[in-house]
């Protein structure tokens, strides 16, 4: 395409990918491609403005329906806010505030025309709705998977309640196969539903892994952006929306290829490491609990020992007293692995408060941000008084 020559920083790859011979005559009229800094600044501005809209929506919600509803529909409000911002700007065929600030505008297609309404709508959906929907579906599958996994392992008492969903889901398999004659189709269906069931059950453990993949995809996109300087967002890449610079051409703008090189190196290292480990099941398992694998593996099988007995140095567990006697009845109550009362998992980076209670570093600092008091005895604490007990084998 023509502008590659005009905009002196337009990379050579542009010419290669979209060599439009017919546009040679109109070459001087083309705007130069937007440079990477402008696109990134515009995106940042847009994020900021979209978050303004989101906050306004949230406040409106809170005034209209009360805090409870507002909190319950936080994600939906966020979706609404982003949608509003992009529909009102990109959707109505205008520049977004960020684009206007940076003097860039959207183009699409080989001839560099403004994107059609359909393409803009597609971009808005990619940008706002798809992440929300994906998150929604994933969380639903995850919680169902958790329920399923547990209804299988739950013994005795749990059955009457959870058997119902279990059978409801597994029921689809036999039903569909018995309904039709024993054809390959029905067998395929049965296998498909069995696979689906398996998939649902595995999803909670797969989730961190998938997230990691997603992160890698985003990083790969960023790397490509640094190299070719076309699409900063995956959603824009998918919708094929590029940017041209319409402001006054000024000084040489920097290119970010060197950053792209670094990202490429990083991705290569990650890929190499992934190949080296190769053992995907162990990855999924180890992501689940990043700490000492052997302890956790065993703890996961016979449901974890909860609660206050984890904090061994607690003379005053008044509200925890009834838990400790029940849990000590079963398997090796305090097996040397001590639990944090806040996340109910093994303590990571055990951290003591001034009152002598011990939690995970993350757990207690997060709570300390919320309210500076000990979760167990309500003694006032401060961030600075927290001591991470490194030199002790808790």
């Amino acid at each position, binding site marked *: 395409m023509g502008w590659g020559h005009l905009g002196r920083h337009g990379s050579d790859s542009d010419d290669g990918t979209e060599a439009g011979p017919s546009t040679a005559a109109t070459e001087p009229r083309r705007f130069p491609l937007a440079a990477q800094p402008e696109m990134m600044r515009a995106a940042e501005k847009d994020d900021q403005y979209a978050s303004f809209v989101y906050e306004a929506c949230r406040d409106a919600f809170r005034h209209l329906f009360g805090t*409870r509803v507002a*909190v*319950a529909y*936080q994600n939906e409000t966020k979706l609404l806010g982003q949608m509003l911002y992009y529909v009102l700007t990109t959707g109505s065929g205008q520049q977004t505030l960020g684009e206007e600030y940076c003097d860039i505008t959207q183009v699409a297609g080989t001839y560099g025309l403004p994107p059609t309404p359909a393409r803009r709508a597609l971009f808005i959906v990619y940008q706002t709705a798809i992440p929300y929907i994906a998150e929604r579906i994933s*969380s*639903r599958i*995850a*919680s*169902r998977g*958790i*329920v399923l996994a*547990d209804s299988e392992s*739950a013994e*005795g*008492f*749990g059955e009457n*309640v*959870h058997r119902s*969903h279990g059978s409801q889901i597994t029921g689809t398999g036999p039903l569909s196969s018995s309904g039709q004659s024993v054809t390959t189709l029905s067998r395929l269906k049965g296998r498909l539903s069995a696979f689906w069931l398996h998939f649902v059950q595995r999803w*909670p453990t797969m989730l961190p892994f998938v997230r990691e993949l997603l992160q890698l995809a985003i990083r790969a996109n960023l790397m490509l952006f640094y190299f070719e300087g076309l699409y900063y967002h995956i959603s824009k890449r998918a919708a094929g929306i590029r940017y041209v610079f319409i402001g006054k051409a000024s000084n040489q703008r920097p290119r970010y290829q060197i950053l792209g090189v670094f990202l490429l190196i990083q991705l290569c290292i990650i890929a190499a490491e992934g190949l080296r480990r190769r053992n995907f099941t162990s990855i999924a398992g180890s992501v689940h609990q990043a700490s000492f694998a052997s302890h956790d593996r065993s703890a996961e099988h016979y*449901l*974890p020992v*909860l*609660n*206050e007995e984890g904090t061994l140095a607690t003379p005053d567990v008044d*509200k*925890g007293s*009834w*838990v400790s006697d*029940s*849990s000590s*009845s*079963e398997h090796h109550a305090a097996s040397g692995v001590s639990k944090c*009362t*806040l*996340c*109910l*998992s093994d303590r990571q980076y055990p951290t003591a408060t001034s009152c002598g209670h011990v939690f995970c570093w993350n*757990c207690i600092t*997060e*709570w300390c941000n*919320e309210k500076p*008091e000990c*979760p*167990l005895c*309500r003694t006032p604490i401060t961030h600075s008084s927290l001591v991470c007990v490194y030199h002790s084998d808790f």
Partner: protein
Amino acid sequence: MQASRARLFKEYKEVQREKAVDPDIQLVCDESNIFKWTALVKGPSETPYEGGVFQLAFSVPEQYPLQPPQVRFLTKIFHPNVHFKTGEICLDILKNAWSPAWTLQSVCRAIIALMAHPEPDSPLNCDSGNLLRSGDVRGYQSMARMYTRLAAMSKKG
């Protein structure tokens, strides 16, 4: 988000394990949403709620356990600290006295304790609170018992 999910999962397993130990509380997670729970609690003995089974709805925020779960009675209950229409519960540990060391299970226990020991000085149900504050314990008890029969025991029959 991830932290709250992990913690709820732990609690879920713990609930499964402890069910037999504490027959007064039956805590169940929504099949499709781990942030929604319901509980069936037995009315404590020697109170007007004895013999009743009360349903509680938990809505757990994503910031849990930094933020308390929202709990309300689904079963009608005549109690000074429970809103008669909405089932909203006035309990300090669900508001400003929340501590992340509480679990859904222990919140259930706290609610049972609240049922046994109403706090008429911070009433959400003024009728009930006034009865108690004016010293009409018998009036309060008979009203509470009536509603327990009407709302919390009918399912059994």
